[in-house]
């Protein structure tokens, strides 16, 4: 009887682990992986929002900035390059260089706008600047959310005992995103 129990108890424990813990751990990892994918998609959305904002900003300021053609052309080129890179095979990581160049160009434009009092008092330009600031914030927050999601996912997949599952079910590590997208920092 006791020998039977000695066999039965470990078998029951194993069954409980397989039936209860494995699906729960697997589902938890899938949920965290999907959060990473969702956060990554959010960055794309915000980058496209910035691409769409640039033409309005340029048309609002170019009348005042006839002597700043270099800055305007740089923004136009950077924006065209960023839009052109949208379908590139490297994904978001492959487009970091073009997006960083656009950030830098927009930083230069913002610095120039600050030195023109007429522009600083234009309600239309102020609104577009607010939109630009908000878009930069959204990109930074989306990146931050993505990296937080990556931390949570990678921590979950690397800690015991869930790390026993990752090899069998193909949970690859997620990558952090290193984008320097802040206009103010890139002046």
């Amino acid at each position, binding site marked *: 009887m006791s020998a039977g129990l000695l066999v039965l108890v470990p078998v029951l424990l194993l069954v409980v682990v397989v039936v209860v813990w494995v699906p729960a751990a697997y589902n938890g990892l899938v949920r965290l992986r999907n959060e990473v994918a969702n956060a990554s998609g959010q960055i794309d959305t915000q980058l496209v929002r910035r691409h769409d904002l640039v033409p309005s900003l340029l048309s609002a300021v170019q009348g005042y900035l006839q002597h700043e053609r270099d800055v305007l052309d740089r923004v136009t080129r950077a924006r065209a390059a960023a839009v052109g890179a949208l379908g590139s095979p490297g994904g978001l990581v492959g487009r970091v260089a073009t997006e960083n160049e656009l950030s830098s160009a927009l930083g230069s434009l913002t610095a120039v706008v600050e030195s023109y009092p007429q522009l600083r008092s234009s309600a239309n330009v102020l609104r577009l600047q607010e939109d630009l600031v908000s878009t930069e914030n959204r990109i*930074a927050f989306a990146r931050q959310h993505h990296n937080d999601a990556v931390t949570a996912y990678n921590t979950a997949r690397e800690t015991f005992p869930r790390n026993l599952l990752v090899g069998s079910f193909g949970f690859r590590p997620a990558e952090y995103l290193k984008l320097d997208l802040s206009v103010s*920092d890139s002046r």
Partner: protein
Amino acid sequence: MSTDPQRGTGSSSALSPADRESFFAAQRRHRRAARRYSAYATVVVLVQSVPMSVMMAPLLLGVMVLAVDVVNLAFPVPDPRTWVAAVADSAGAPQAVQVALAVVVVIVPGVLVMALIWWVMRRFFLRSGLGGAVLTLPVRAPDPADPEEYQLLNVVAEIAVSAGIATPSTLIAEVPASNAAAVGTSPDQATIVVTRRLLDEQDRDETLAVVGHLVASVANGDLHIGNTVLAVFATYGVAATLFLAPVDAAARRTLRTMLRVVRHRSDPVQEAEAVRELIAFEGGDGMIAGMVFLCWRLTYWVTNLFFVSHWLVAPLRARRYLADATAVQLTRDADSLGRALAGMQSHGPGVPGGGYAAPYFVLDPQGPCGSDAGGGGEGHDSDAGGGGESLDSDAALGSSMHPSLGRRLARLRRLGYLGPAPRRFSAFREHPVRAVLGYLLLLVVGVPLGVAIFATVLALVLTCVLLALLFLSFAVAIVVEPLHVLLRGIA
């Protein structure tokens, strides 16, 4: 103005690295505390429901007797009072059985009825989202042509991206207060309400931090918990009207209004008004009704003041700390949140009529009113917000649903707030001799005094319960006995 959310939480804090805490660690700590306090609050509410249930017993037993009499018209059923009497009077019955029977008869029906009322009210709040309470304030949609309000719309969208939730809708409250609230039933249906004064007085980073606190609160599930706690207060309101219904026309009228609102979905503002009327019920016309209501109120006040209110609001306070820590995770900017809270407190967070929905505000809306705000930044050191009443004049009885600003700022300093440290008074450090004498006096006089107060409170509660039992038994007997005799006679 600087708007970079990637900015660090500051490095010039006077706190040593050992005193600092990561926002993830802070969230874990506050989440554990909130769970622990929720368990305590559940136990305390169950204990408080016992005297209330005892007082309701005559009414419920009267209804039960009449219901059995009605059934008896169709199917023969013995008089229920004879079942109880038979067991209670049987000399052979063990004492434990008699005690158990008394508990079942006197306490269990009331507890079950109050649990049922709580369940209905909670569903009602989750349906209507007590947001109606805040929507009874003068609110309007933001005007995109106004730069500050346009900026607010952007700020809400930014924080929603940071939290990974859908962008909540936004409303502006035209009240002379510097405060903000998140209302609704779930993260998908949340609404952020910001007072116009807050927009005028806070810079972009501070507004971002305040909205971050609200979105963090929404994402943490505080709307659900706030609705659950407010349903407890509403339960006492419904129970009070139910308790008085046999002897008071105003109570019956209030109950009918509430039933109509619960059964038929209506405008959130109307629903909020109905709940407000219920919670603030001041019925009790006539001598018997007045005495019964007085006993009920005394029991409720005394139990709330000495036992319940502190524990009931403790989970809500813990969740404010949790929302602060989560907001710092979302914005990576504890300093702006600390500055925003201190500024709001000094400008006056008091929202007239907003106390009804206190758990949903960033700062206690029962705090100092905005109209007498003169600035001065006292909020850094003050402990204001810790003593205001919330919900209504009875509900929390001196226990604010918000932690004191000083404690919040102290916790935010560990996360990176650079403002002045809250003043901490240490009697032993500043006046050691007087402190020792004071504690000795407290030991000699305070402890016996505390025991005496506790005994008095218990005696007061017992007296109230007995008086209410007496008055209500008398009132119920006048109504039930003739009907009982009539129905049994017909049968």
